[in-house]
């Protein structure tokens, strides 16, 4: 079946199967391998992308469900420059192996869209759907605070 999705600002028309997952569309059909698959019980969050602005686990969404949606992946977040969340992640050393990082960055972007000045509790709850095995999370939390600050500063 055919689906029409907008991915990182570009319209795509694709032939998929009923059972094709959104993450497979991104990784295999479109070659956008920045979005990763880390588990099979929809818990690790490595596959998180924005669908119509909200963080969603692309491994748990069918391509058909994404028909007509606007998708943003890690590749489309910064464009020519880096998004403040990406900047905060490197400046705060909030990544080590980098495998969970794209999904983590997309979740944080979604969190900050909803809570531009999040409390610690909101940050922790906002990261509940993303697992990291390397960093021990402290720098990720610091990166969220730094990004929030930077985005508030530029919004002022």
């Amino acid at each position, binding site marked *: 079946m055919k689906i029409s999705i907008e991915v990182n600002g570009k319209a795509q028309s694709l032939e998929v199967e009923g059972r094709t997952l959104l993450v497979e569309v991104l990784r295999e059909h479109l070659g956008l391998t920045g979005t990763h698959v880390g588990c099979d019980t929809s*818990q690790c969050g490595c596959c998180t992308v924005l669908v119509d602005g909200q963080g969603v686990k692309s491994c748990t969404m069918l391509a058909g469900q994404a028909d007509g949606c606007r998708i943003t992946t890690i590749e489309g977040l910064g464009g020519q420059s880096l998004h403040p969340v990406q900047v905060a992640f490197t400046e705060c050393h909030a990544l080590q192996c980098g495998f969970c990082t794209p999904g983590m960055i997309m979740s944080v972007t979604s969190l900050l869209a909803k809570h531009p000045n999040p409390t610690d509790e909101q940050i922790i709850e906002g990261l*509940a759907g*993303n697992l990291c095995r390397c960093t021990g999370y402290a720098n990720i939390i610091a990166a969220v605070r730094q990004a929030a600050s930077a985005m508030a500063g530029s919004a002022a």
Partner: protein
Amino acid sequence: MHAFEYRRAASLNDAVGTLATDGDARPLAGGMTLIPSLKHRLNQVSQLIDIGGLADLQGISVQADHLWIGAAMRHQQVADSAEVARAAPGLAQLAGLIGDPQVRARGTIGGSVANNDPAADYPAAVLALDAVVVTERRELAAADFFQGFFMTALEPGELITGIRFKLPRRSAYAKFKHPASGYAMAGVFAADLGAAGLRVTVTGAGGGVFRWTAAEQAWAGGSSVPTLEHPDLLEDIHAPARYRAHLAKVMCEQALRQLA
């Protein structure tokens, strides 16, 4: 996954009709339970008919004597709804505790209630608020709806269109999250339904949601929450039954403290 067709329902009738004629078709709303189970090849379907976008299943509205939530409303929508926060704060609180942010963006109340996972959150609210589960063909009282471990009164092909909750005077939900799955190890919903009385329901601790009448009586009488006694408490590698019983008590106390 085994192969299947995917199609968006054009209308509620279209969905109902498809489910009636194809016994191997299944409805798809959020997919937060169905898609993982298909990925694990735990079931096989001929087609998924996507009802998530159907207008008939959308909407949150407060009427004189009830709160209506459309079956396809996402958990995040319920959690963020000003109307739900006003009309039944415990329900908004509950929706915000389901899963994680990404799951809440997609999972639906209809899907959760139809699945009746014994550790899911919504059944506690549906039972506590004396809700009526409305399908395309009839209405089912909460007390009759939940029939145990992943079982409900729904007939094959029957679709929930929405849930009609009684308006509580006060309501609160307290949940102890399972350290791995994030489901309820014990979730307790407390509701004061005014003339209809007090309700305390428990999810996660047993084979399905149940009313905890001893706790209701204690609440009514102003005495402390008793020890939970229930024949069907879950005992597994994570916790013995008596811990879950204890958690239910602690969560009940937490919920009641919020209402004080």
